């Protein structure tokens, strides 16, 4: 069981590193927003694995809150980025 969780978290960490690479490389602001959105999903997935490890349901509202926050943030940033790129 522990081995499985280690492998799972390792894969999620690798995915997070790749996503951060895209976040840094860009090239446009929209690529960065897409990468940030994926990173939020990865955080939710990692927290879900944590919940599965400790079989502790008290962190589940956190999952819902982070998922909601990620959606609102990405949607707002997408609208702002469109305006900025257009006026450039």
């Amino acid at each position, binding site marked *: 069981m522990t081995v499985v969780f280690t492998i799972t978290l390792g*894969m999620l960490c690798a995915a997070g590193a790749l*996503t951060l690479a895209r976040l840094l490389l860009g090239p446009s602001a*929209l*690529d960065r927003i897409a990468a940030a959105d994926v990173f939020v*999903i990865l955080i939710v997935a990692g927290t879900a694995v944590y919940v*599965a490890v400790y079989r502790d349901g008290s962190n589940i509202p956190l999952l819902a809150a982070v998922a909601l926050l990620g959606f609102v943030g990405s*949607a707002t940033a997408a609208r702002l980025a469109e305006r900025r790129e257009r006026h*450039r």
Partner: protein
Amino acid sequence: MTAVLTVLSCALLLTGAASCLLGALGLVRFPDLPSRLQAATKPQTLGLLLILFGTGLRLDLDDAATLVLVGLFQVLTAPVISQLLGRSAYRSGVLRRDVLVVDDLGARLSGDDDGAGTDRRNR
């Protein structure tokens, strides 16, 4: 029964994490924004759903119900974000036209193929 659930949960968690990893790999490797959006939405959503399912198998029923809510929310919002980003990319000219295969929106916007009375407000 518990052993079966544990094995199933492990398999789901591993598959979900692998799907997330493949999606992140696509996000880095793909050449332009629309294909990156494919990698950013579909494998990530599938991976998250698998992980949530695997987590739910290890919890009580009332905790697992909230996980269903989280999964549903992700399924609903991922296409919205993808659509918003794609639209922003098209309208602001970030999109690379040379790698596009089909461009239906361009014909509509320029009025060549007049999309059956395209609304001027939408131009």
